[in-house]
């Protein structure tokens, strides 16, 4: 009897275990985890599109995206960018002196930001077929994903050359190697051709790319594909054609030059008609403010700035005088004790960029400037489309036509310069490249034009002997690309080949 009861107890306990064992199935209540379920909801697909933009926009931790001057790290070899000789600017200096290293932490900003956008864009493209909703709205999201994926690969392929390339969300590409540059261009072009079809002519939300943006970016991709390193010269005509489509339909897309160059840099003109694609920064969310504003291009000794980036002396000296030059550079610094110091007497003896100050700097007392603000940061603007057309048409046809002159001169006239006429094809092309350098100075584009046209050595040879950062490494095409980051090779050794 006694023993029986003991056993009964044990058996009962065993039964309880069997009973409860069924309870061990996980049913997460608050967590999303299955893409095939969550992307049935339109709002979730849209949320991943937002995360895609957030990827390139980047964060305030100097780790990802275009939020800080670190995104320009791989572009410091150009003559529109130089940096302080000491302090904590070692990462920028490496590229400025053509002495790059694979453990440069700052270059990871561009890498991480672009790849984060690609990761999310792949998800949107792959799972959008499940989404229930208005077809045009879904197409718009998918079009944006194609645009952003191409945009991101474009920065990566120009900075690093051979890169890891993947377009699928469901297979995890942990062991892929580096893809050739031409394969990356194929993906970008196919993405942009799709984006062109999927995107609406105008967007309700000002920060999103439209059909015009896809055409504009495609024209630049073709232009670059026609130059170094692929030299597919037939693409010049395609570049000209796409740029022309944008110019001819600027009314439909709502694009135009702002009448005054200096307005471009004021917060009230954020997302103006000149903006084709801008990243939207908002300080209210803490991590999402724009950190190129304010201190990054302000002199440390005079205005309590950071000396992150400023202009090389010869680039400044050759920059044609006029309202554009005045709006681009700051040559007099106001110290906190009220004295004005001309850049020639300043600690670094360089002018600084004036483009990124509004909303971060109190001009009556610049030393109190913040290092971040809310702004939209133009990564593609209409002036560039005009200059792409001018160059591509000339290269494709052998000489500039009337429309090419018109495009170039629109930019020059606004800058307060005279119109050009009667140039040879080579003279015209040089004039366009110079113009583009001046127009977009400090905006992270000059370097890519210099490598595309293989002008790096020529420009570097022109570097003033008064520049503090000298040239250590090769300025030839063997040294155009940044090294694949060490930290990535450590995780995927296939990237080391």
């Amino acid at each position, binding site marked *: 009897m006694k023993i029986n009861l003991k056993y009964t107890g044990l058996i*009962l*306990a065993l039964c309880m275990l069997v009973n409860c064992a069924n309870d061990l199935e996980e049913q997460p209540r608050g967590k999303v985890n299955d893409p095939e379920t969550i992307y049935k909801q339109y709002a979730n697909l849209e949320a991943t599109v*937002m995360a895609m933009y*957030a990827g390139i926009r980047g964060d305030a931790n100097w780790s990802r995206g275009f939020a800080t001057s670190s995104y320009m790290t791989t572009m410091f070899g150009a003559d529109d960018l130089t940096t302080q000789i000491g302090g904590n600017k070692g990462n920028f200096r490496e590229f400025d002196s053509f002495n790059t290293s694979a453990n*440069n932490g700052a270059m990871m900003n561009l890498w991480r930001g672009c790849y984060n956008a690609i990761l999310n864009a792949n998800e949107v493209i792959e799972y959008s077929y499940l989404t229930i909703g208005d077809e045009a709205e879904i197409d718009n999201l998918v079009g944006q994903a194609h645009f952003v994926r191409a945009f991101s690969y474009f920065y990566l392929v120009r900075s690093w050359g051979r890169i890891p390339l993947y377009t699928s969300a469901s297979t995890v590409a942990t062991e892929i190697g580096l893809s050739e540059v031409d394969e990356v261009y194929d993906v970008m072009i196919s993405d942009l051709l799709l984006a062109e079809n999927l995107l609406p002519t105008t967007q309700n939300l000002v920060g999103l790319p439209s059909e015009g943006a896809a055409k504009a970016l495609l024209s630049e991709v073709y232009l670059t594909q026609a130059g170094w390193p692929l030299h597919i010269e037939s693409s010049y005509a395609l570049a000209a054609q796409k740029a022309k489509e944008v110019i001819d339909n600027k009314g439909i897309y709502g694009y135009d030059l702002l009448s005054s160059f200096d307005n471009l840099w004021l917060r009230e003109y954020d997302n103006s008609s000149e903006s084709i694609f801008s990243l*939207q920064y908002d300080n209210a969310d803490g991590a999402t403010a724009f950190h190129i504003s304010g201190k990054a291009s302000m002199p440390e000794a005079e205005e309590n700035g950071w000396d992150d980036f400023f202009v090389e002396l010869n680039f400044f000296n050759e920059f044609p005088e006029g309202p554009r030059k005045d709006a681009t550079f700051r040559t007099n610094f106001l110290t906190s004790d009220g004295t004005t110091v001309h850049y020639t007497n300043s600690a670094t003896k360089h002018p600084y960029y004036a483009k990124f100050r509004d909303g971060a700097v109190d001009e009556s007392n610049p030393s109190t400037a913040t290092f971040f603000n809310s702004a939209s940061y133009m990564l593609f603007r209409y002036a560039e489309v005009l200059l792409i057309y001018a160059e591509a048409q000339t290269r494709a046809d052998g000489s500039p036509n009337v429309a090419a002159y018109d495009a170039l001169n629109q930019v020059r006239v606004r800058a307060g310069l005279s119109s050009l006429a009667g140039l040879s094809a080579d003279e015209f092309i040089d004039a366009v490249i110079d113009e583009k350098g001046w127009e977009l100075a400090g905006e992270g584009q000059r370097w890519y034009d210099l490598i595309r046209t293989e002008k790096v050595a020529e420009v570097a040879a022109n570097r003033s002997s008064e520049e503090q950062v000298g040239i250590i490494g090769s300025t030839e095409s063997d040294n155009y690309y940044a090294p694949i980051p060490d930290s990535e090779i450590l995780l995927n050794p296939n990237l080391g080949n």
Partner: protein
Amino acid sequence: MKKQKKRVNSRYSVLLFFLLSTMFALNAQGSGKDISGKVVDESGMPLPGANIVVKDSNIGTITDFDGLFQLNVPEGTEMVQVSMVGFKTIDVLLDGKTQFNIVLPEDVSQLSEVVLIGYGGARKKEDLTGSVGVLSSKDFEDQPVTRVEQALSGRSAGVQVKTNSGAPGGNLSIRIRGANSITGNNQPLIVIDGVIGANFQLVNPNDIESIQVLKDASSTAIYGSRGANGVVIVSTKSGRNKKPVISFNTFQSISTLPKKIDYLNAAEFAELYNSYDRDLNFVPGVYVPPFSDEDIERYENEGGTDWQDELFREAISKSYQLSVGGGGEKVNYYISGEYLDQEGIVVNSSFQRYNLRSKVEVALTDKLDLTLNMGWSKLKGKNNEDVGHQLGAIGRLPQWVAIEPVWEDYGVLYNNTPQYGAVSGNPVGLQYAYISQNETSIFQPSFNLSYKILEGLSAKLFGSYEGTKTTVYNLENNHILDAGPEVISRASINNIDRERGQVNFIVDYTKEFGDHNIQATAIYESGNYIEKGNFNGANGLNDVSLGWNNLSLSESQTSSSYYYDEYYNSLALRVNYGYLDRYLFTATVRRDGVSKFHGDNRFSTFPSLAFAWNAGKEAFVQDLDVFSSLKFRASWGDSGSHAIGSYATLPYFIQNGESNYHPNGPGTGTYVGLGVGAPGNESLKWETTTQYDVGIEMGFFNNRLSLEADYYNKDTNDLLVNTLLPEYLGGETVLKNVGSINNKGFEFTVNANPIRNDFFTWDVSANISVNRNEVVDLGGDELVLSSALYGDSATPITAIQLGQPLGSFYGYNFQGVWKSTEAAEAATFGNVPGDARYEDINNDGEIDSEDLSVIGNAQPDFIFGFSNTMKFGNLDVSFVLTGQKGGETFNGIYQKSVGLYGQSRAFTSPEWYNRWRPGHEDTDVPAFSSTSQSYPNSSRWLEDASFLRIQNITLAYNLKKEFITDLGLSEFQVYINAENVHTWTNYSGYNPDISSAGRSTGGGSGTDVDQNIDTGAYPIPRTFTLGLKVKF
């Protein structure tokens, strides 16, 4: 639905229990004769709480406050047994007498001490087959410990207690026999009065009766999938005496920073910075140094800011504790309360704890006992938890030069982007502008019903609940750090609600027949854990003075919530068998099912076996007349670790502020982002640790000298590792079961009692532990990088490498500077003489990822503890020494003081005086040079972490009994104590054994991959205490 089913099950067990109880409720009343008397110790002092039991029966009583007892014994009783913890058990022949004066001799060896082995089981120390460390309250009662962990420090072999943070209420870690897991936190399982997974903060150390540390697999396997890191079993005090004993303890202490680091003062900085500027920027003719001679002279006179004096302070702490314990024949009770108020040595940091505990034991019938336990705790911390990381005040301090002021104006902090300091974060400002206040309340009731079914057979039903509510308030008052229209302040409230439930049904069977002794325990256990949280945040507070109390009055608000649950079911059996009290066997087996895993991977079985031979009881050993006791032990077993949270097998997405976007431009609505995280892994399973242990215990000179030595070897397989995806795939982590870790080591403990007489007793105890940790398999990989980043390094400074222990540092090997004679070789690296030189491991003329290697390790060669207690009459003197030999610490604050990288635009370290320059080339400190690389991940920042510390010294004076008995007191003690008195070490930071790892801000994981990383960890203060203990 499923929840309900579970509730029904527990109801069944209750039902079953009562069924059993009613069926077997027998009456055991009888008439006999009354005996009475007094129990005293060898010095004649009455012993309250001694047990007097009629041999081989359950008839007995305990002595009252005056040592008196009265007992009705059945006719024919010949003998009673008298016992008490800390004393030898004796048999008293009645011999027809009714009045007794019994003297209990003290048991020096404590071999008869009862050791808790889990789930209500207890064994005499001499009958143990496993390796268990035991601490009784006597060991630490003279010390003003505020944390249970402190009591363990240095006192138990194989146990490493690390004060990662010196913040009040801060982070402490315990490792038993090394770290098994890469992903798991490696903290031992804490069991307090039967409640599994309890929180030490719930217990005031003064309420503790005993602590046992279960170390080998035979001891821990009964806890199955949660036992792999060892188990710490704590039992709290119970009331014993008829007359209530009231005790009151209080102390006041003062804490200070034990050591200041040497930084440049203002004038020194200005001069050195001139040298730096000149070395980099000198142009003949026009050069003007940044600081003029007048500036320097002014700094000389004014002195500048001593940031350490500004950030650290003398901190005052106080504690009040009151307890009352007592009881009668049927009921015992113990109730205690505590209030602890601690200031931190960093300004604006503090901690308060309120504790209430009650234990009521009721003998409902002769066979049915009920224990009700209730613990309640309220913890309030301010800037004490998530501090000590590289972006916090202490981490920022070495970047701030002495010429920068703290305050810009009265009440306005100096701008957070000074000219020569860090990019942001005035250290004093951070401490005032960023307020993190956490409030936790823990409520933990439990009950235990135990029913004696038959002689030797009993059943127990145990149930517990633990509710922990935490609220973290955060305020980021950027307005006092920075001016301007774009500056916005933020606040948030984060609520976390955790609930843990546990039900046990335990059947115990004990039987002696002839020379055989058997004790068997069958356990059913079911438990759950549910965590719910919500977060409410506001950006752009309209009025920062409202803090977090009016979140809606702001530009924008965010909120989020989450839910998390896990369940487990277990069945376990433990059998202890003894033959002739000499040959002891233990076997356990446990089967666990846990919801965290998928499919069949949810279930696992954990067996163990142990054998001990009490050779000291063999006649031939006794004939030797050498050993007063001698025991050999051997054990083997498996235990496990979940190491991960729920839903870890599933893919995940990222939802946070950094994934959100404003597609319609700045200042417009926020669109929520849902970012791709990482794919899931359905094949995850438990980590399993298999451990072998052999031990020997020896006693000499009537056990006045005892030695215990253990050797163990444990293999942990199927390690759960968070593997990092490359950045091109998002840089997030994926969990995998890869590889194995081995820990093996020796533990050696000596206890001695050289002198014991009426006036002077002297106890010494020393222990030393050697643990060798090695990663023996990484699933085919040679190297897995840590997922955490420190010290502004883009590549992790820690890594898991095959053949190396956990806690390996990874980076470049710093080799000093390029010499003038090496100019040509230096040039191939883009360097000039005087630049930092790193080892080019693969000799390819470039310093790149191929030159990264394991450059050091945090694991010590051995750790040791030494405690010494002397009692001269009424005066007690005791001290504890702790230390370690070997191991390294990453000195991130030294790195930041050298500066000129990352966010450090200048430097504060006087080491620059010793830099390379022409004429001073015999140095390892690089020159001021724009081509010199200062890699954050290099061996330059590793320092030897060996130390010897006087952990504490206590001097206690007990007022003589004759003075205090008149006042109605039984004890009156005054003591002074010094904690962290002195540390001998070559480490140049504050403490070699603190770590910033595991802070949620500023990067860092809480795993043992990242150890000894000091990027501004909270220094351990030196504390002087004056205390008083009174017992009524």
